[in-house]
């Protein structure tokens, strides 16, 4: 009952919060103005700026935040590890390498490979790389997974640096890939992200029960009819697609998939029916808030959004590392 009330509050807060946060920026809007723009009663430069720049950016932030949070939650349950997240276990770094590689090939050798596909291929590769490195006799110790993720991330980030400097002879574009930004978000990005994020949500909604079973132990999962390898592959595959599309759109954004599932578990419980929708909503809202800070704190200069999420996420990571969930296993 309490959880239902909490969920209704969260849903309302997400919608109102999105509208409210979209009012800040180099041009400020009142909520009334935003409402008029949205129902098509207003025209002019201010309204076209809102519809073509601010609104798609708002939606992209929500979609990416939502997708990363749901993906992180899926990784944490299936790997039985509260510290798993696409950024920490190196999936995002793999995706960013793939994305930069496609740009590099276009620039240097005029080979045109789809950025999202290449990002996906390397995201999937890095997820299995981290997984293989950290697996010890059928178990994945929590801290080993994190260390392997750090190493895989280092490897791919270094490779990105090499490619960028080699092709463009500067390090300015590196900022986008290493710390992320939503400043170039367009409606095309919204259309590209929407099906991917919704597909992940749908798949995870169907396998949520199995993911919770996996959280209670892989061997035990077999005895109630779950095939762990198949489920892990499905989760890696799905999270890799989402990370690839997110990274191609906005660069590396860390910690969303770590912080949000943890907060939702505290409020709703890992096994609640509301867990998944609440994770999606709070993840979206969280990134919208972070992006608002990134846009407005030092305007007109923008902060990279990854710096904002890390400022919130790193302390949470430290807290989790010292918490009882991890202490049992380390």
């Amino acid at each position, binding site marked *: 009952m309490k959880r239902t009330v909490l969920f209704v509050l969260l849903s309302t807060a997400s919608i109102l919060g999105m509208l409210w946060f979209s009012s800040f920026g180099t041009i400020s809007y009142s909520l009334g103005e935003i409402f008029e723009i949205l129902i098509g009663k207003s025209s002019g430069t201010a309204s076209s700026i809102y519809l073509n720049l601010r609104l798609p950016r708002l939606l992209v932030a929500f979609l990416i935040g939502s997708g990363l949070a749901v993906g992180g939650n899926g990784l944490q349950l299936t790997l039985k590890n509260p510290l798993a997240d696409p950024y920490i276990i190196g999936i995002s770094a793999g995706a960013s390498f793939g994305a930069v590689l496609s740009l590099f090939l276009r620039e240097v050798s005029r080979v045109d490979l789809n950025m999202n596909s290449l990002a996906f291929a390397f995201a999937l590769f890095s997820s299995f790389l981290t997984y293989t490195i950290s697996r010890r006799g059928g178990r994945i110790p929590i801290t080993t997974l994190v260390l392997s993720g750090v190493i895989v991330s280092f490897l791919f980030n270094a490779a990105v640096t090499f490619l960028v400097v080699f092709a463009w002879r500067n390090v300015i574009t590196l900022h986008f890939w290493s710390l992320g930004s939503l400043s170039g978000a367009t409606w095309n990005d919204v259309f590209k992200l929407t099906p991917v994020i919704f597909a992940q949500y749908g798949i995870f909604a169907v396998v949520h029960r199995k993911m*919770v079973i996996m959280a209670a*132990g892989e061997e*035990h999962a077999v005895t109630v009819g779950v095939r762990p390898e198949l489920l892990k592959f499905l989760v890696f595959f799905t999270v890799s697609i989402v990370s690839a599309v997110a990274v191609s759109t906005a660069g590396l954004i860390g910690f969303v998939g770590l912080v949000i599932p943890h907060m939702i578990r505290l409020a709703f419980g890992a096994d609640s029916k509301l867990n998944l929708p609440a994770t999606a909503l709070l993840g979206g809202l969280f990134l919208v808030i972070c992006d608002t800070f990134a846009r407005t704190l030092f305007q007109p200069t923008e902060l990279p959004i990854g710096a904002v999420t890390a400022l919130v996420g790193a302390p949470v990571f430290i807290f989790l590392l010292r918490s009882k969930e991890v202490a049992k296993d380390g």
Partner: protein
Amino acid sequence: MVEPIQIEGLHFSYGKEEVLRGIDLHLKNGEVLGVLGPNGSGKSTLMSVICGIRKNWSGKISVMGDNLRDLSTKKLARIVSYIPQSFEPSFDLKVETIVSFGRNPHLKGLGNMTNEDYRIIEESMRLTEVYEFRDRPFSTLSGGEKQRVIIAKALAQEGKILLMDEFTTHLDPGHARRVGKIATDLVRAKGLSAIAIFHDINQAVEISDRLLFINNGRALASGKVWDIVTPEIISLVYGLKSRIMENPISGLPLVVFYD
């Protein structure tokens, strides 16, 4: 009627280390077969092979007449329920959630639970007396309560065969007796067949219809308790001297060890 489990010449290795070296085992209908053996003798490995956790074994295993290799993970889980020694979920899960895991192999389509599933879950929780704390987080329960929840899960699974791996070892004598009784009463009431691994030979004698001794990955002997519990076998299995007397209360063999 087909025997629930027939195993012939089962071999299994972890890498180069051969853990099971040709085990034969027959589980008869409606019996509790107690499995005994020293640490590292292969008891738990045997059980994990039967419930599908370990795959690369060789030999012949048939479960309810079907070759184990031909059964999918899901189908096997509908026949065999498993009660592990201990159970530690990584996140806080409610008691009812854990019991509901037992319904997973029965779910169809997109995996939604039906009213029938909820009814079975509730009944399983009432039979094991965990219904009162169904909404509590599993991690806040005592050892005895936790094992009852796991029994409820196995019950909700509705398998005809129950595998129990030292499921009372971590409990004090009072709780061990109570949990053991709940499990065996359910086996009898529901007409199940069970294999139970024991640490304590006297507990095994009380609960089992038949005993099987394993040592070094081989089945040494099996039979009814009075036929098989002898100082010779015990010295062979555990390397200990012992005297067998009649338990004045139950009339069953009582083993006393000495050096």
